């Protein structure tokens, strides 16, 4: 985690074109003395280690600095944008599990059946599709051609109620979760195929349990544990995808925030969002680890 903060800090400090020259680029032929005094004001004249230590100290009390352009505190800006990104990512995770688990079971129970082959083909296609292209195609089909769903924008619960929010989020959720659905299907499929050959499944069948019960009661439990772990590890990927999805659908989340921040060279904003993304990734894999231990009593930590 310490190394993460160091890397995030280095990201913006080691790159050429510092904040001052970016600010002054707008005002042409700026007085060199103004440039100098601004540098002093931002403390950019001090050595790297000193600036890093000061930045860390402020970070520890939740101060991420202020945006260079809007002068708003970075933390407030991020917190204002956070709910959209959380709704987008959490919805995509839920969707990937709800769709992926049944399909994976279907394919895994009878390996090499027509259903399994069809799903494997779709999975190969799904992994190779650029998510933003898929999003554009979905907009084209469902919003522009059929007119069923809005093509962009966001409505929060107070603004439009539940149904309006769902209508606006459905395409973003589908776009973001497509690649995850494929991963879940693959994992559940191989897990199920392996479990079905085990002795305890044969026992359950032998004592006369119907196939459906064997599957849901005995097999599913064993298949799900690794799915949860991998879902936790995939949060980083989902956040990457969320950046692009938010840009396509013009959702006011952290993704659009960071894209604006980067393109306008607003370093504190960029730093803050990148750091938040890394923190969320680490937290999610930690949660997955703990859940894994709770769900599978055979796992022990020293």
């Amino acid at each position, binding site marked *: 985690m310490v190394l993460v903060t160091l890397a995030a800090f280095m990201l913006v400090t080691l790159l050429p074109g510092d904040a001052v020259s970016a600010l002054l680029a707008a005002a042409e032929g700026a007085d060199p003395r103004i440039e100098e005094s601004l540098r002093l004001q931002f403390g950019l004249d001090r050595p790297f280690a000193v600036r890093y230590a000061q930045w860390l100290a402020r970070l520890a009390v939740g101060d991420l600095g202020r945006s260079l352009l809007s002068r708003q505190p970075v933390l407030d800006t991020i917190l204002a944008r956070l709910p959209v990104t959380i709704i987008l990512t959490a919805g995509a995770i839920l969707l990937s599990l709800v769709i992926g688990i049944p399909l994976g079971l279907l394919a895994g129970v009878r390996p090499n059946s027509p259903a399994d082959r069809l799903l494997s083909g779709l999975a190969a296609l799904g992994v190779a599709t650029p998510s933003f292209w898929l999003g554009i195609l979905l907009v084209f089909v469902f919003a522009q051609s059929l007119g069923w769903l809005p093509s962009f924008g966001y409505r929060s619960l107070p603004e439009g109620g539940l149904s309006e929010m769902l209508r606006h989020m459905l395409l973003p959720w589908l776009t973001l979760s497509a690649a995850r659905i494929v991963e879940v299907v693959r994992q559940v499929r191989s897990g199920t195929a392996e479990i079905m050959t085990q002795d305890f499944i044969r026992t359950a069948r032998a004592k006369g349990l119907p196939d459906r019960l064997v599957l849901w009661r005995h097999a599913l439990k064993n298949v799900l544990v690794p799915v949860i772990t991998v879902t936790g590890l995939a949060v980083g990927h989902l956040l990457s995808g969320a950046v692009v999805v938010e840009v396509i659908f013009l959702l006011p989340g952290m993704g659009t925030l960071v894209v604006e921040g980067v393109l306008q060279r607003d370093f504190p904003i960029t730093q803050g969002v*990148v750091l938040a993304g890394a923190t969320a990734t680490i937290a999610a894999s930690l949660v997955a680890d703990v859940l894994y231990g709770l769900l599978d009593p055979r796992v022990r930590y020293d």
Partner: protein
Amino acid sequence: MTDYPSDRPSTLRRRFLRTRTGPLFGGLLTLIVAAAILAPQLAPHDPVRQYLDRTLAPPGAGFPLGTDDLGRDLLSRLLYGGRVTLLAAFVSVGVATLVGLPVGMVSGMLGGQGDVWIMHAINALLSFPSVLLAFAISALIGPSLAVVVLAISIVFAPRMARFARGQTLVVRETPFMEAARAAGASQGRLIFRHVLPNITAPVLVEASLGVGYAALIEASISFLGAGIQPPRSSWGLMIKEGFGYMDSAPWVAIAPGAAILLLTLSVNLLGDAMRDVFDPKVRL
């Protein structure tokens, strides 16, 4: 007794031909690469020439894939854009492997505190969302092809290092390594003469899967506006350019997306086939 195939080149070739996907997608990939290399010969038009009386023309005579909003021939742009996308994908995976592979092997062979610290650094880099990191690096330095390659390499190198370390740990415990160590081989000799040849196959497979991944990242950061800059083009940038015209001219964005899809699909399935070819336990 199980009859394991040998790893002589002739056996590998026979096993490769026996996978159904290998030759098919290997051929497709060759076609894509050849089309990009031969772009100047194959392209029917200059990729930046604007036929202003034919803007957003649908696919048809003269313009096989239609034209974009500036009246540029899409097929020609697709061929030239492919050079940028393929170059960025292959070079960045190459750079990432050149850096990540030695780091991973050394880390795995060292063990102890050195290994722990190298892995901490690698995990720190891996905890940044990949597209976000590549996009930020590329946009903040100032986008160009070299910077895009650098950004994707920074994202992919730690993955390769972690993969190479995992493979090294497996090889390290084998009896032949113990024998080499007992015979007094130095660490360097152990790494290059004994570890490297034994992890080359899985590393190659991982790298080929990485090419597809790199192409997707390049497309994403171009789409976000921090990749190759106009008038040059890559497939990701072409999708971005077509995004605004989906209602009137959907072919502008559909063609480059399909091209990325085919590229990624063929490297992924080729990688899967190669994995089966190299794995003696898989019957083909």
